[in-house]
Every structure is written in structure tokens, then in C-alpha cells.
């Protein structure tokens, strides 16, 4: 029996992709958060995927970590802002909204693909169960 492992493979991918979608949502929500609980502006986050070896030759996906984007923060001249520094510049998150939207679409498509994979496997297994009837 190999087809039942499709559920483990696609299931792990669903978990990973939904975590990616969560991170995208968090980045988009905080695209303009000038300060966070630590007093610093929000830094964009990205998930890291790696292969999760399963029994046999099957390979799932897992999220090995969420890393902060090291690119420079956005700085705008806004001297009237209470959080502006002595030169009048305000530090804003380094979230690239266009990139995040692309990431979101990619994650949602990958999620849909895996749901379809699971549905096909389910249909095949149900048909196998009726063998000889």
C-alpha cells in the first residue's frame, strides 16, 4: 500500500503552506508598524521549507524555521512623527508588499494543488475498496 502515504505527504505540505500564509498575513498586517513590543520597527519574516523524509520513498515538507529579513529598513522623512529620530527620519518595516502578495498567491496555489492531490488519492482508495463488488 503506497497510496495512503499520499495523505501524509499532502498533509505535511498543507501544514507548511498554511504556516507560510500565516507569515505573509503577519507581514502584510505589519507593513506600517513603526514600533513593536521591543520598541523597534517590525522586520519582515520568511518561512524556510525543507524536505521531510517519510517511510519508503515518500517525501513531505516541513518548516525548519522562520527567519527575519536582514534587508535594510525603510526610512522616511517625517519630522512631526513622535518616533522620528533627531534628523527627522522615521524607521518603518522592510516589508515589500508586492513581494508578499506574490508569496501569498504562490502559497494559496500550492495549498490548492495539495488539496487536489489528497482528493485524487481519496477517490482512488475508495474505488480500490469496492474491488470485486
Amino acid at each position, binding site marked *: 500500500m503506497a497510496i495512503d502515504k499520499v495523505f501524509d505527504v*499532502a498533509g505535511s505540505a498543507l501544514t507548511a503552506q498554511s504556516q507560510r500564509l500565516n507569515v505573509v498575513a503577519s507581514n502584510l498586517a505589519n507593513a506600517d508598524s513603526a514600533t513593536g513590543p521591543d520598541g523597534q520597527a517590525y522586520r519582515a519574516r520568511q518561512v524556510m521549507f525543507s524536505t521531510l523524509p517519510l517511510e519508503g520513498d515518500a517525501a513531505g515538507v516541513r518548516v525548519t524555521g522562520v527567519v527575519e529579513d536582514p534587508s535594510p529598513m525603510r526610512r522616511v522623512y517625517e519630522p512631526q512623527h513622535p518616533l522620528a529620530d533627531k534628523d527627522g527620519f522615521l524607521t518603518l518595516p522592510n516589508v515589500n508588499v508586492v513581494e508578499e502578495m506574490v508569496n501569498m498567491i504562490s502559497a494559496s496555489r500550492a495549498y490548492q494543488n495539495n488539496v487536489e492531490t489528497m482528493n485524487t488519492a481519496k477517490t482512488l482508495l475508495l474505488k480500490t475498496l469496492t474491488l470485486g463488488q
Partner: protein
Amino acid sequence: MVNRLDELLRFHATALGLRGERQQLLASNIANADTPDYKARDIDFARALKAALDAPSAPAGQTGIPAGAQPQVLYRTVQQPSADGNTVDLDVERAQFAQNALRYEANLTFLNGQIKTLLAAIQG
């Protein structure tokens, strides 16, 4: 007698097992479409089926792919590898996945036909 029944169903049972293995590999490829450095994998179905059928048949009562003839997993040659080292081409994988599912169902239909024939012979 039981052996002859096994022999009759062996071809389609083995093919069905291999189709299942391949379905699992293709699902792994689709799941890892965004994993850096993942290399898409597949089996050469015709060769794997021949190897499984040529292998000494499993002891009575045991069906499916013989232990010594597990399919050899190969890496797919790819037209456009990504910059992150991933070689999954989603269009190819989805097409192969759909085709493999269809052939799995075809195999089931053939097996069902054989079983119906046998039942007709038994019941008269």
C-alpha cells in the same frame, strides 16, 4: 489451484502496486514544489513493471511487488531548474499525476473484470 488464481491476477495486482508507488512519488514532488534544493523524482514504469514480473513470484498468499524488485527511483531531467536548486515542474507533475490516477483506475477496472469472469465461471 490457488496458485493459478494468483498467477491470473498477478499482472494487474503488480501493476496496481507500482501505480500506487508512483502516485506517492508524484505527490511528494507536488508537495515539495517550493522546497529549495528538492529534486523531482519518478520511476521508469515499464522497466519497474518488467522487473517486478520477472522476479521470482512471492510465496503463496503474498501479493503485490516482490521484496527484491522494488522500483528504482530516478531523478527527473528538467528543462528549467529554479535558482534555488528545485527541479519540480508543476505542470509536468500534475499532468503525470492525473495520468497515473487514470491508469490506476483502468487497472482497477481490468481487475474487476477478471474477478467478475471468475465469479461467473464459479457460479455458472
